[in-house]
């Protein structure tokens, strides 16, 4: 009996100690998200309401002037077309992948992953190099002189840019369809095309819509493509950027950015709705490989799909090829000459910038993965009240233009006690919190496949909440960690918009240097930097895969 009471005391002590840690982690997650996402966003929006300390609606008064209305119309038009096209093409590529043999599937999947690693502006750069007025293909090969600048160029690049991620999302959606439903459809007399129309598309419709909305918001917020390839065609995101740069009018720029928020919120609500509908699909079925079930597409369809897929990959190869080529050559008025000059220019001058980029991206990748996982855990596993608002907050930076998020940091963190401007910390924080949403969404998806009772089991076996997180949740989510780390790392290596104002002479990073080179029109050195960035990103990703060794899971 005495023993028993002692046990109990110890239990109580341990209980409070563990729950303190658990609470601590929880509050750190909450506060950091509010402080480093919501606060700066609110701050930057508030600059549109305050002019030198006094409240004003000036910035909104003529926000909807004819010029801006046209701008909105144009932006919606281009972002709309690009996202619809890229969703259609992605669906074709995904469908092609879905019906192909296992080996080809693997190859396509890898290639798509790789083609996601693309620093911003690289596509624009490649387009100019290949198809510009003195483009290698248009001029050198075909003897044409075409003008790549305009909305068509934006649509082309945004479409291509959206394909890798969209295809990957659609491929996994296709594979989550219960194979038996496809069999059932054919069993009931529907031929392949009818099955695709009536079963396959409706089954992955939520994903199709998510993909559509995701690429729509990203295209809407994209300023890198239009700024380089748009010519005289203007879009909302570019104009926001321009407003900042030309007039330094933060208030007006912020007000314009606010215009981008409604579609972003819409798409988030959409995503949330689909998340719940995903849960009640494919219940209780044994995973059934579809390798042995032949799913023959009609020849014409097969041809179209093959054509689209092959074309896409040819374009990808051309893109990377042209970057590498232009890193090694000079193309003057149609004459291609080999040179190492660009390498000399880049040489050692930027080594610290590259090193810094790697360090920042590794830290951001790691921290944002951890926070993203925890956020998802508290929201969807512990189902703590109010967490879905926090989850919404975490999605904000993903759907508003990066430059806007960056400005928020400057506006929000330039006074004591939050004086961070000019420090290395602010760049890392910004990169980290900008990408929480990726880890969060990946974790949400993973959680739907993990039995909730596993956590109960862990606690039943004596592990506290905190120990359950470290011993069960994190190890189980290792593959998610990997994906989100790679995503964030890649994004950080190549991001520009968000940190363009945050970097100071002390903490320049490679992507900024590259951006500067491109806007100065120094395509040669820019290509060298792009090649190095791609190389670093691929290598670090491979190392991460090796370290986390996600393959031998399950």
């Amino acid at each position, binding site marked *: 009996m005495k023993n028993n009471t002692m046990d109990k005391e110890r239990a109580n002590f341990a209980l409070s100690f563990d729950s303190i840690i658990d609470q601590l982690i929880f509050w750190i997650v909450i506060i950091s998200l509010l402080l480093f996402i919501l606060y700066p966003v609110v701050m930057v929006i508030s600059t549109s309401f305050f002019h030198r300390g006094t409240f004003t609606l000036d910035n909104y008064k003529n926000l909807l002037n004819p*010029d801006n209305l*046209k*701008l909105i119309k144009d932006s919606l038009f281009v972002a709309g077309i690009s996202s619809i096209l890229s969703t259609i093409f992605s669906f074709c590529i995904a469908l092609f992948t879905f019906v192909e043999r296992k080996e080809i599937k693997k190859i396509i999947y890898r290639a798509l992953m790789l083609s996601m690693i693309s620093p911003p502006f690289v596509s624009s750069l490649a387009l*100019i190099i290949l198809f*510009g*007025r*003195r483009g290698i293909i248009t*001029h050198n090969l075909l003897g044409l002189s075409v*003008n790549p*600048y305009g909305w068509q160029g934006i649509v082309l690049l945004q479409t291509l840019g959206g394909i890798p991620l969209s295809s990957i999302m659609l491929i996994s959606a296709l594979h989550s369809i219960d194979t038996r439903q496809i069999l059932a459809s054919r069993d009931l007399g529907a031929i392949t095309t009818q099955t695709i129309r009536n079963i396959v598309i409706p089954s992955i419709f939520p994903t199709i819509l998510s993909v559509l909305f995701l690429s729509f918001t990203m295209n809407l917020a994209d300023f890198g493509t239009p*700024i*380089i390839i*748009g*010519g*005289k*065609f*203007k879009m909302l995101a*570019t104009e926001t950027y*321009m407003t*900042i*740069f*030309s*007039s*330094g009018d*933060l208030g007006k720029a912020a007000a314009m950015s606010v215009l981008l928020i409604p579609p972003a919120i819409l798409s988030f609500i959409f995503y949330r709705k689909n998340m719940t509908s995903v849960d009640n699909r494919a219940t209780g079925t044994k995973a059934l490989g579809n390798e042995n079930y032949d799913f023959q597409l009609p020849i014409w369809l097969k041809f179209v799909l093959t054509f689209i897929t092959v074309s896409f990959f040819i374009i990808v190869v051309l893109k990377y090829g042209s970057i590498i080529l232009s890193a090694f050559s*000079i*193309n*003057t*008025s*149609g004459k291609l000459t080999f040179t190492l*000059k660009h390498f000399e220019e880049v040489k050692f*001058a930027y080594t610290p910038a590259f090193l810094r980029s790697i360090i920042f991206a590794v830290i951001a990748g790691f921290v944002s993965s951890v926070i993203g996982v925890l956020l998802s855990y508290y929201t969807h596993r512990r189902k703590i009240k109010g967490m879905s608002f926090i989850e919404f907050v975490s999605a904000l930076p993903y759907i508003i233009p990066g430059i806007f998020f960056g*400005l928020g940091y*400057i*506006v929000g963190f*330039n*006074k004591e006690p939050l*004086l961070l*401007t*000019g*420090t290395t910390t602010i760049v890392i924080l910004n990169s980290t919190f900008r990408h929480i949403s990726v880890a969060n969404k990946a974790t949400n998806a993973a959680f739907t496949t993990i039995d909730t009772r596993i956590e109960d089991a862990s606690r039943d076996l004596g592990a506290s909440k905190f120990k359950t997180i470290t011993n069960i949740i994190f190890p189980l989510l290792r593959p998610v960690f990997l994906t989100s780390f790679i995503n964030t790392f890649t994004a950080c290596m190549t991001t520009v918009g968000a940190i*363009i*104002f945050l*970097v*100071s*002479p*002390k903490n*320049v990073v490679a992507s*900024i*240097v590259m951006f*500067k080179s491109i*806007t*100065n*029109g*120094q*395509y040669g050195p820019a290509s060298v930097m792009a090649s190095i960035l791609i190389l670093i990103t691929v290598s670090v990703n491979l190392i991460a895969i090796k370290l986390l060794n996600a393959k031998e899971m399950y």
Partner: protein
Amino acid sequence: GKSEQKESSDDSTTPVEETKDKPFEGTTLSVLLAYGGAENSFDKFTEETGIKVEYLEMSTGAALAKLQAEDGKTEADIWFGGGVDSYLNARDLGYLEAYKSPNVSAINSQYNDKDGYYSGLALVPAGWIVNEDILKEKGLEAPKTWEDLADPKYKGEVIMADPSISGTNYAIVSGLIQAWGEEKAWDYFERLNKNIDFFAKGGGEPLEKVAAGEFAIGIVAITGGTYSVGETSPTSVVYPEDVIPWTPAPIAIFKNTKNLEAAKVFVDWYLSKEGQEVLREADARIMARDDVDAPELMKDLDKSKLIDFNLELMGSQRDEILTRWKELVGEK
């Protein structure tokens, strides 16, 4: 570079003097840079003074936006080069430190702020870069005067940076207005506009676009870099035969600097004869000091064609001019 530094200073001075000479040894200055090629001169400065330099290339427009967002609490010490209009703006917002270097006396006062908020480093004339191949292909001659440039035969072949983004391009617009008077200038811009497909988003873009053969003629600020692209591409630099707008490349100290004394040393050095010569080597320009020769490349520049430019006026008219400009060109 560290050991080299030591050696060279050993050569020129005695150790005792060294400590006196280099009171800021080990200090690091942060520079916001908008002066292509200037980074090549920093080593020499460090060698002479022991002050290290870190820099970030950033267009002056972006830098101004950043300053505003930070409310002037920048971590940078020095603003180096770029569009003088942004300097004027920053001065009015109180972000700059007034400092009259003893060396300004050797500099044409037209280049400097009268209260010393900025000083001129170099003079940047405006002109054109032309792609000979394209011209030949189209059977065109290079333009000789601004009026030539507005000739419809160059339609679609002219590129210029958006003056609201590029300080130097704004200086060109403002300069022509000052030189010709409102009426003539605006009439001219209207015709010129017809030849321009779209405006570039950065001051450096026209240069490379012309070099790459995307356009035949670019309106550019002429620096050493403008000439050097001619080494690898069929381009050449053309100065207008009628009037040449120009702008100074300024230097200023930020009010928020924590290294004011070192920053003053920096400004002094770059305004000294030696500093100016080093800077000229780093990027060939016509330097602000009269006692520094124009670089070999620019010997053919006829200084008499330089317009009489009132910088204060340029700064104060900026909003007005750009608004009108925007109305004129529309969405380009």
